């Protein structure tokens, strides 16, 4: 018999740090995709040394 209990999200809580190149605009690098993922959105730290 199948359980009707929804599976818990097994994804670990994890921060994401992106170190970009200051010559490249932030949104042009990776944010278009990663920025739409709620799992990571609030943890993304961008900095461009």
């Amino acid at each position, binding site marked *: 018999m199948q359980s009707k209990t929804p599976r818990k999200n097994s994804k*670990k809580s*994890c*921060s994401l740090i992106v170190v970009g190149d200051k010559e*490249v605009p932030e949104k042009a690098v990776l944010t*278009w*995709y990663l920025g739409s993922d709620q799992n990571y959105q609030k943890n993304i730290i961008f900095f461009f040394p």
Partner: protein
Amino acid sequence: MWKKLFTKEFKKIGQSVILVGHSLGGSMLLKYLSEERPNISISALFLVSTPFWGKDGWDVEDFVLQENFEATLKHINNVYLYHCKSDKIVPFQHLNFYKKAFPHSIVRILNGTEHAFSKGLPELVSDIKKL
């Protein structure tokens, strides 16, 4: 100055972290991780179009990594490399250095000339989501 910035940001991390370095950002990240050795848990390191600095690459001393730098990064189990075959900024050959330094890395060789990935890099996103 950028080392201080890295230290400040890394101190905020209270859990494992995924690190993505793009181009010069990747170079700085490698230099910082190998020389400063921050006490953080790194679940994966993604290097995108990262230039190699040295005699066989771009010869700028400030960014040259120490000899055997990779030995200080052995604790990072998941390393991913991305580079376009016809990257207009960082020659594709630069990838070879990192492939050698990280023999267990997953290497994504991409078609095209992109360096900035102005339309995104779905391969990277897919790899992150699989972790």
